């Protein structure tokens, strides 16, 4: 990546928009002719549904964004970008419901590397424990069984297919309770 132009306050009058190159996903502060470093505040408290940087990753060549410009509050930016992310297929956001729980959650499956991570996160989210997965017998040791709906509309047991296939085909998760779950997958 090379820097094409250097911002110089003496050339303000003649400036059209300038090209800047930077690494994808980086944000650079530009100031009036002096170099300075700005520590960017962490946006980590924002929920996982907003990444805020996907545009710089998909545009080419990527243009570094000026901090705080245009002056749109990050709450607003994040809410609009949530929609963009979902429509562009960045990540795979699926709704998670649990039988008996009054509300849904939403998670991005691409944030997890494998099943154990996902299960741990679900357990934390809904305060339950899932028991142990056995290839032939499904989940044992708990009344709760994690299931998912795949692209064909079938309800499957979480863990039956390889992880990558699961991430790409899962449309929605449902943590079933009790007898309803017994008929699935490799259960008894």
């Amino acid at each position, binding site marked *: 990546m090379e820097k094409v132009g250097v911002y110089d306050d003496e050339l303000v009058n003649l400036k059209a928009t300038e090209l800047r190159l930077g690494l994808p996903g980086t944000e650079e502060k530009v100031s*009036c002719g*002096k170099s300075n470093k700005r520590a960017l505040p962490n946006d980590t408290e924002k929920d996982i549904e907003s990444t805020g940087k996907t545009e710089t990753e998909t545009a080419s060549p990527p243009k570094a964004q000026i901090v705080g410009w245009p002056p749109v509050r990050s709450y607003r930016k994040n809410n609009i970008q949530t*929609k963009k992310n979902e429509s562009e297929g960045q990540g795979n956001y699926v709704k998670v419901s649990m039988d008996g729980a009054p509300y849904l959650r939403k998670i991005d499956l691409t944030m997890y590397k494998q099943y154990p991570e996902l299960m741990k996160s679900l357990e934390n989210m809904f305060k339950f424990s899932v028991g142990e997965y056995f290839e032939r017998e499904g989940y044992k040791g708990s009344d709760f069984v994690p299931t998912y709906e795949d692209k064909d509309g079938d309800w499957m047991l979480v863990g039956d297919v390889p992880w990558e296939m699961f991430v790409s085909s899962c449309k929605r998760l449902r943590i079933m309770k009790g007898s309803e779950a017994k008929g699935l997958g490799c259960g008894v």
Partner: protein
Amino acid sequence: MTQDRTEMSEDDDDNSQSPPLDLRSAAIADHCSSSSSSTPNKSRNCMALNSQTFPDHVLENVLENVLQFLDSRCDRNAASLVCKSWWRVEALTRSEVFIGNCYALSPTRLTQRFKRVKSLLLKGKPRFADFNLMPPDWGANFAPWVSTMAKAYPWLEKVDLKRMFVTDDDLALLADSFPGFKELILVCCEGFGTSGIAIVANKCRKLKVLDLIESEVTDDGVDWISCFPEGVTSLESLAFDCVEAPINFEALEGLVGRSPFLKKLRLNRLVSLEELHRLLLGAPQLTSLGTGSFSHDNAPQSEQEPDYAAAFRACKSVVCLSGFRDLMPEYLPSILPVCSNLTSLNFSYANISPDMFKPIIHNCHRLQVFWALDSICDEGLQAVAATCKELRELRIFPFDPREESEGPVSELGLQAISEGCRNLESILYFCQRMTNAAVIAMSENCPELTVFRLCIMGRHRPDHVTGKPMDEGFGAIVKNCKKLTRLAISGLLTDQAFRYMGEHGKLIRTLSVAFAGDSDMALRHVLEGCPRLQKLEIRDSPFGDVALRCGMHRYYNMRFVWMSACPLSKGCCKDVARAMPNLVVEVIGSDDDDDNRDYVETLYMYRSLDGPRNDVPKFVTIL
């Protein structure tokens, strides 16, 4: 009907036009507390009649009975300066206090002067903090205020905070300390979560208003809706559209069902269309509705699809509509039955195309306040101009907020609005292309403008037809819009634009400047003109020490000055600080700016009655 001013307008304090004379009244306060004599200070311009004809206490009783009717704070400020007696009585009768900068005075000073406060409006961080121009944890903590007021004002009923840092502990203390508490409004605040909200919901039994607006609320996993007590509530307004946490819908439905006074309800993104439908059926008395996601959770079963239009038809009182966070466009026509009643419509989170938009707006003849994304395009704005003749406030936000984005709105939309909406008072317009001609047209067609904020997103963009700077356009605005109190400029601008502003901007209180001007002269024009200037925020503009010194005669009469990424030196800022002891001069930097010792990354200065604050983080230096 009432406008939702806390959400829909950021200029809620611009109604009072007088420059607050805090320092002078503070001087009276100091004098009064030290003086033992009851005769008026002869060096003040006092009417001498009180001690000659009537005893002091009789006159003060009369005064008290009169002054209690005075609501406007600038009237009260003026009354308090008449003489010591008036100062004292005014302080006893002021029940609502507005503090525009939480660091301008200490909480103790507030409670010492005003003894019977029922309502506090408090503002914290400067506005540019919204755009990540300030590191987090800068300050504006609510904690010292709530703990001081807990002891001084047990009868406190209302707290309205903007850009403050509020913790769950603060909310718990609030809920515990004020048994008659009625209204909590948190705008652009952060630091708390659903657990804090739950405590307020549970303990404030007289709660009428709980409005969380554009605030960052952490999801602590607490079911706060279920924390409202059983039985009929006093709730009139419940706004939680910014809370990014799922809610217990059954509990919400129950709450709405037992809140007969509820008029305003703003749902968050996690409430679906079907759930909205159920709520509407149970609450047809609503006047203001935030519709939540406006989309389905699951694939709808067509035989059972609820009649959304009928639910809206039943809401005869709805005049203010917002939400549409995940809008499924095919359901938008359901709102048609309420369109002709609407005075306020907020589509600014919905990506609506002109074709979807036009049939809706065509019915909104009474609309006064309209917020939307630029996805409605110039075509949509032309439709607004054709129908919404009563429009007073317009805000157009960018769907794609980047400098190099396409920009579906332009000077055409602005021109159309100026021709169709002659009563326009306030406009915020994001675009990529603009012309002086359109801005001039607006200045001529819309004489009622008090707020003009134009953001041409590409920096330094000239008039895209003539190639000239945008000086003449903004010049026309300040010349022709005689009521203008707030201005935000953008595009390619030379010192000439600032000359116009300084000369003609007689009523401007708030000025926002970014990437503009050629030299120090520009800022000089503004500081030596603009007699009513209170709030000045500047970024990335070539204004340096010479310009800064030009304002020393007036910084005490301003609420604050913000200058970031401008060529200021620490030496000059130190000089200003030394010359003006009641001015707090903060230099805000990042942690690693030792190498550029003289360079001032961000200057934020404000007057203060109580000296520098005691909660300064390490990246802030007070000179």
